[in-house]
C-alpha cells in the first residue's frame, strides 16, 4: 500500500505542475503581453481556465494531505525550515485565486479591474517561483537542521542560487505550458500565431533558465549531472525530453498544432521523472548529509487507510475531472452562451 500512496503523491504533484502550471502560466503570459494581446489572453483564459482552475488547484491540497497524513516527518521538516518561502507562496495563492474571482465576478467593471489584474499577474509569477524555490531547496541538500543562527536555519536553506534558478525554471515551464495549451484553443489564425510566438519565447526562456539551474548547481556544489545522468531511467527521460523538443520545434515550424500540447506535457513529465527518480526514495536532503526517505512513512494502519481512501476517492474524482476538462474544451458541440451583462 505504501507504493500506492507514493504513486498518488507523485501523480498529484505532476498533475498540479501540469494543470495548475498551465493556469499560472496564463497569468504569466498576461504579464508579458501587449495591451491588445492581453485582451485575447484574458478572454481565452476565462473560457478555458474559468471552469477548471479551482479543480486544478485541488491537486496541491491532495499532495499536502498525503504528505501530512502519510509522511509527517517530511511535512513538518519542510514546514519548519522552509517557513518563509512557504508563507510567500501562500500569499501568492491567496492573492491569485481571489484576484481572479474578483475580476470575473465584480458586478461593476471599472478601474478596480486594473487592480485585480495587476495583483493576479504578479501573484501568477510569485506562486510558481516560490514553488520552484521550495522544490529546489528540498532536494538541494542545503537544509540546515543544526544551524545556530536564524539566517542559517531559516534563510540560507532556500536563499541560494540553486533554488532560485529552479524557481525561475518553473516560472518559464508554466508560461510554456499555458502558451502551448492556448494555441489550439484560439479561434482565429492570427491569435494562434500570436500564441505560437509566445510558445517559442517561453521555450527559449525555459531552456536558458534550465541551463542556469546547471550553472547554479555547479556553483553550489550540487551533483546535478550525477542525478540526471547517473542512472538509466533519468538519463533516458532527459534524452526523450530533448528528442521530443526537437520534434516540437519541427511541428511548430510546420504549423501542425495538434500534437504540440501532448509533446509539451510529455517533456515536463520526462523532466519530472528524471528529477524524482534520481532522488527516490530520499526526498528531503539535509546539509549534514542525512536525509528523510519516503520509506520512513507514518503508521502502517494509516498508510493502508490512506491508500484505500485515495483509491476510492479517485473513482469519484478522476472521471468527473476529465469530464469537466473535456466539456469545456470541446466547445464546438455546444452553443456559445452570452450572459446578459
Amino acid at each position, binding site marked *: 500500500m505504501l507504493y500506492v500512496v507514493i504513486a498518488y503523491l507523485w501523480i498529484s504533484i505532476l498533475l498540479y505542475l501540469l494543470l495548475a502550471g498551465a493556469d499560472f502560466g496564463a497569468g504569466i503570459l498576461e504579464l508579458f503581453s501587449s495591451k491588445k494581446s492581453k485582451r485575447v489572453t484574458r478572454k481565452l483564459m476565462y473560457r478555458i481556465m*474559468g*471552469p*477548471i482552475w*479551482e*479543480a486544478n*488547484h*485541488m491537486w496541491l*491540497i*491532495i499532495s*499536502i*494531505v*498525503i504528505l*501530512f*497524513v*502519510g509522511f*509527517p*516527518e517530511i511535512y*513538518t*521538516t*519542510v*514546514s*519548519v525550515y522552509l*517557513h518563509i518561502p*512557504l*508563507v510567500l507562496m*501562500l*500569499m501568492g*495563492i*491567496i492573492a*491569485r*485565486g*481571489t484576484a481572479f*474571482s*474578483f475580476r*470575473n*465576478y*465584480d*458586478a*461593476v467593471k471599472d478601474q478596480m479591474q486594473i487592480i485585480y489584474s495587476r495583483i493576479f499577474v504578479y501573484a501568477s509569477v510569485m506562486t510558481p517561483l516560490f514553488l520552484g524555490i521550495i522544490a529546489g531547496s528540498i532536494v538541494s541538500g542545503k537544509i540546515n537542521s543544526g544551524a545556530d543562527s*536564524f539566517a542559517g*536555519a*531559516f534563510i540560507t536553506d532556500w536563499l541560494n542560487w540553486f533554488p532560485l534558478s529552479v524557481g525561475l525554471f518553473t516560472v518559464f515551464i508554466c508560461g510554456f505550458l499555458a502558451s502551448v495549451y492556448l494555441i489550439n484553443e484560439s479561434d482565429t489564425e492570427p491569435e494562434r500565431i500570436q500564441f505560437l510566438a509566445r510558445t517559442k519565447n517561453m521555450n527559449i526562456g525555459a531552456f536558458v533558465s534550465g541551463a542556469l539551474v546547471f550553472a547554479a548547481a555547479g556553483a553550489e556544489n550540487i551533483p546535478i549531472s550525477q542525478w540526471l545522468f547517473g542512472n538509466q531511467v533519468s538519463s533516458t527521460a532527459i534524452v526523450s525530453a530533448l528528442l521530443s523538443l526537437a520534434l516540437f520545434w519541427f511541428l511548430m515550424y510546420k504549423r501542425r498544432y495538434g500534437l504540440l500540447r501532448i509533446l509539451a506535457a510529455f517533456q515536463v513529465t520526462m523532466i519530472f521523472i528524471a528529477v524524482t527518480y534520481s532522488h527516490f526514495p530520499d526526498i528531503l536532503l539535509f546539509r549534514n548529509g542525512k536525509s528523510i526517505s519516503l520509506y520512513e512513512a*507514518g*503508521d502502517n*494502519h*494509516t498508510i493502508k*487507510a*490512506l491508500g484505500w*481512501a*485515495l483509491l476510492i*476517492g479517485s473513482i469519484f474524482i478522476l472521471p*468527473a*475531472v476529465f469530464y*469537466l476538462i473535456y*466539456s*469545456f474544451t470541446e466547445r464546438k458541440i*455546444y452553443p456559445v*452562451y452570452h450572459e*446578459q*451583462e
Partner: protein
Amino acid sequence: MNDFLAARSQMALSLGFHIIFSCIGMVMPFFMAVSHFYWLKTQNIVYRNITKAWSKGVAIFFATGAVSGTVLSFELGLLWPEFMKHAGPIFGMPFSLEGTAFFIEAIALGFFLYGWDRFNRWFHWFTGLVVGISGLASGILVVSANSWMNDPSGFDYVNGQYLNIDPIKAMFNPGWYQEALHMSLAAFAATGFAVAGVHAMMILRRKNINFHTRAFKIAVIFAAIAAILQPFSGDKSARYVGQRQPAKLAAMEALYYTGNSVPLIIGGIPDNKNKKVNYAIEIPGLLSFMVNRDFHSTVKGLDRILPEDQPPVAITHYAFQVMVGLGMLMMLIAFIYLSGVIFQKKWRNSKWVLRLFVFAIPTGFIAVEAGWTLTEVGRQPWILQGIMRTSEAVTPMPGIIYTFYLFTAVYISLAFAVIFLLYRQIKMVGKIYDIPENINLQKN
C-alpha cells in the same frame, strides 16, 4: 506579544476567517438548488435570476474559502509542526476524505457556474446540489478532526509514544457526531439569517421587491428551521462536554467550585482573583440538570483541575454567553416568523418582521465565531486534550509575530474586498436582473 501567542493568534485569525467563507460555501448551494428547482419547474424567470445572483456570490465566497482553506492546510505544519508530526497519521483520515470531498465540490462548482445552457438542465441542477452535499461533507469531516483534538481516541499514548493507531476509530471519535451536527446547523442558521436579512433590507428599501421577496422566503425557511433545532443540539453538546471535557464546561460556566445542585448562570463578570462571578443571573440547579439530567447532581468545578491545566475562564465564559444568547435570539425570531407562516398571518410580511431580520444579519456569524472561540480556547492549554500542550507544539522558528501581522493585513483587506464586491452585486441586481422579470418570454 511573544511567538507562541502570535502563533495562536495567527491560527485563530485564519480559522475565524475561513469559517465564515466555508459556512456560506456549504449552505448557499442548497438555497440555490431550491430556487433553481423552482426555475426549472415553474419557468418563472425571477427564480433563474435569484439562482444566478446567488451563484455569483457563492463564486466569490468559494474562491476565498478555498484559498484560505489551502492556507490552513499549510499553517497546521507552519505553526504546529510538533503536533502534526504525531497527529497527522492519526487524524489524517477525515482530512484525506475532506480533500476528496473538496475536490468534488470544486469540480461540481465548475460545471454549475459555467454550465448554464450547456448541459441537460437537470444534470446542471444536480451539479449544483453536489456542490452543496460535498461542501457539507467536507465541513463535517473537518469538524470531526477538530473533535478528535477535543477528545482524542484511536491510539494508545504510552510513555510519550503514540501506539496502536486506528485512523478510522480516530475519525469516528466520541464527539464527532455532536460537534458536526452543531456546526452544520450553525452554518445553516448563520448563512440563512445573513442572506434573509440582506434581502429583507432590500425589500424595506422597496428595490426589486419581487426578486428579493422570493429570495428572502427561500433563505428564511432554512434559517428558521436550523435556528429552532440548534438549541437541542446545543444541549446534547453541553452534556457531552460536561462528561468528556469538564475543564471546558467549568470555564464556560465560570464554575470555580465543585458542588451539588449547581445553578446555570447567565451573563456575569468572572472574577478570577476572588473566584466568583459578579452580576450573574442564576437559575437554580439547571447546570446540574443539563449535564447529568438531575437537578441535584454534582458538577466538577475548576477547583478539581490543576491550575496549569485550566483554560482562560473569562474568554471561554463570554464566548459561551454570546453564543447561547444569540442562539436564543435567533430561535425566538424563527418562532415568530414560522408561527406567522403556519397560521397564515398577514403580519409575517410586515415591516417590523423584516426589520427584525435586518437586525439579525450578523447574529449567526457572531455566534459561530463565539462557538469556535469557546471550543478552541476552552481546550487550552492543550492542543490535544490531555496529551499535548499547545506550547509544546509550536514551531521553533522565531519571529512569528511578523507573519501574524502579514496574515492580519491580508485577511483584513480580503474581508473588505469581499464586502465591497457583495455590496456591488446587490446594488447591481436592479440593472442586471430587473428587466426580464416581467417578460417571461425567454425560455430555458
